[in-house]
């Protein structure tokens, strides 16, 4: 054995179990976040406020108007998946702040100095954002049951919604990490997050259908990954709803966007500690 293998007996193990190792590394990064949430779950409570207001206040009032052409769905049924997507977006778009914070602490430096591939570090963080997104899904389902939204209660539907939520959180948190690697400070990151959320939200089908938009906004909404996220969630979550783009398209677009973002983020990741 070479001295390096004697000193680090697991190098060989890591090499021969590359894929398992990779999965472990992703999960380890996500696990750190989940354990932190478990030690201090206050964040989960504060995160519940916004979607509650949107669904109970905005949804109730707008529902009375009966002006929004939501097809066979009631307005509240129509918007509930949109609010889920929105609250996941709001959490994820500021997620980059957590890596800036970890950089300032020195934690990220140690992650990057470890043999874990950068892709695993980024994917792990994206998964952690997904877990936070899941807590939003639980809140939305709870509210939906309370106010009588027609949610599909089949196991496959619920599982599909949960997986879609993780996918959406992964997309926007990875996007946020890319921005964080470029701007590098919390203050700038907060500013950019603020600037991005509302346009992403309004230029999507979250609270009104694309048909209602002027042509230029429709064009933007169609390249906005959030629209595909909402479309997928709506199809899976609400009784009697159908996908506007097709579930296959929704999934393909989102997975492609995620893959591209992960690749870019992994390339940029070391920059944040430079």
């Amino acid at each position, binding site marked *: 054995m070479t001295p*390096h293998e004697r000193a680090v007996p*697991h190098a060989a193990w890591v090499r021969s*179990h590359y894929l398992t190792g990779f999965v472990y590394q992703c999960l380890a990064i996500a696990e*750190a976040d989940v354990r932190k949430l478990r030690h201090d779950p206050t964040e989960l409570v504060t995160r519940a406020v916004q979607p509650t207001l949107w669904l109970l206040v905005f949804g109730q009032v707008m529902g009375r108007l009966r002006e929004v052409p939501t097809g066979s769905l009631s307005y509240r049924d129509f918007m509930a998946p949109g609010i889920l997507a929105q609250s996941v977006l709001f959490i994820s778009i500021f997620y980059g702040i957590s890596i800036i914070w970890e950089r300032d602490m020195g934690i990220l430096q140690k992650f990057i100095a470890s043999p874990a591939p950068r892709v695993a570090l980024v994917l792990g963080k994206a998964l952690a954002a997904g877990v936070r997104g899941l807590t939003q899904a639980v809140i939305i389902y709870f509210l939906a049951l309370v106010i009588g939204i027609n949610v599909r209660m089949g196991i496959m539907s619920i599982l599909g919604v949960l997986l879609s939520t993780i996918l959406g959180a992964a997309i926007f948190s990875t996007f946020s990490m890319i921005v964080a690697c470029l701007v590098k400070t919390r203050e700038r990151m907060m500013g950019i997050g603020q600037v991005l959320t509302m346009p992403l939200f309004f230029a999507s089908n979250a609270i009104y259908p694309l048909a209602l938009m002027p042509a230029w906004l429709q064009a933007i909404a169609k390249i906005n990954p959030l629209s595909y996220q909402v479309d997928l969630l709506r199809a899976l979550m609400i009784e009697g709803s159908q996908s506007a783009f097709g579930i296959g398209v929704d999934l393909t677009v989102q997975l492609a966007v995620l893959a591209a973002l992960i690749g870019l983020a992994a390339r940029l990741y070391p920059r944040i500690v430079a």
Partner: protein
Amino acid sequence: MYKNQAAGEGAVRPALEAVHLTRRFGSFTAVDAISFSVLPGTIFGLLGPNGAGKSTTIKMLTTLLLPTAGTGRVNGFDIVRQSVDVRRVIGYVPQMVSADGNLTAFENLLIFAKLYGIPRAERRERIMEVLAFMGLSDMAGVLVRKFSGGMIRRLEIAQSILHLPPVLFLDEPTVGLDPVVRRSVWDHIFTLNTEFGVTILLTTHYMEEAEELCQQVAIMHQGRVVTLGAPADLKATAGVTTLDEAFAHFTGSSIQEGGTYRDAARARRTARRLG
């Protein structure tokens, strides 16, 4: 836990080398073509004031930062072309407080055990071993934000040796610690070196630290290594009795000067968190 790293090897290859290692940021040269080599089982100190280029050097050798020119080798691996191999054989403790305060000591170690691919069957045992070695066995289940400064540093060192790396990088390991605590951290660093032959590169701007711990030091000033040798030899060459005076002799300035606003701010922040 560790096997002695230095024992049993025939030909002596440097554990660590810098070869004209250079890093520029725009027009500013932070590290200016420095070269040195460190034999296995040595504690090597990079000595200099804030802003001398010590941390930048560590960042390049730990593969966090690409050199602008020159290169380095760690355990024979090139820091640019074999960066993943380098990362497998090093442990790194950054200057900042890098243990996660919102996790317990055990959890902090568990995450790294998984990142380094330590098999499940060995994880717990290995974690308890390094905790015991650093005198933290009783603290395994305690949230790190309740730790004292010295305990945090010891936990960070525990984290960095979890995968038994033959080479360890410690960036200002005792900055912000009071003298008694500093000595306990020194004792642990010293044991790692003497008992297990771990090669250690540390940066410091404390002269006592360099004198106490390092067999070899390189004095850095404005990005360059101005001189290099055993502390005793440096003092003899300069014809002085303390390393402080030797530093002044070789650099023409005191170690207390120098550093930018950012360096000073970071040093104070670390000191505040630890204190």
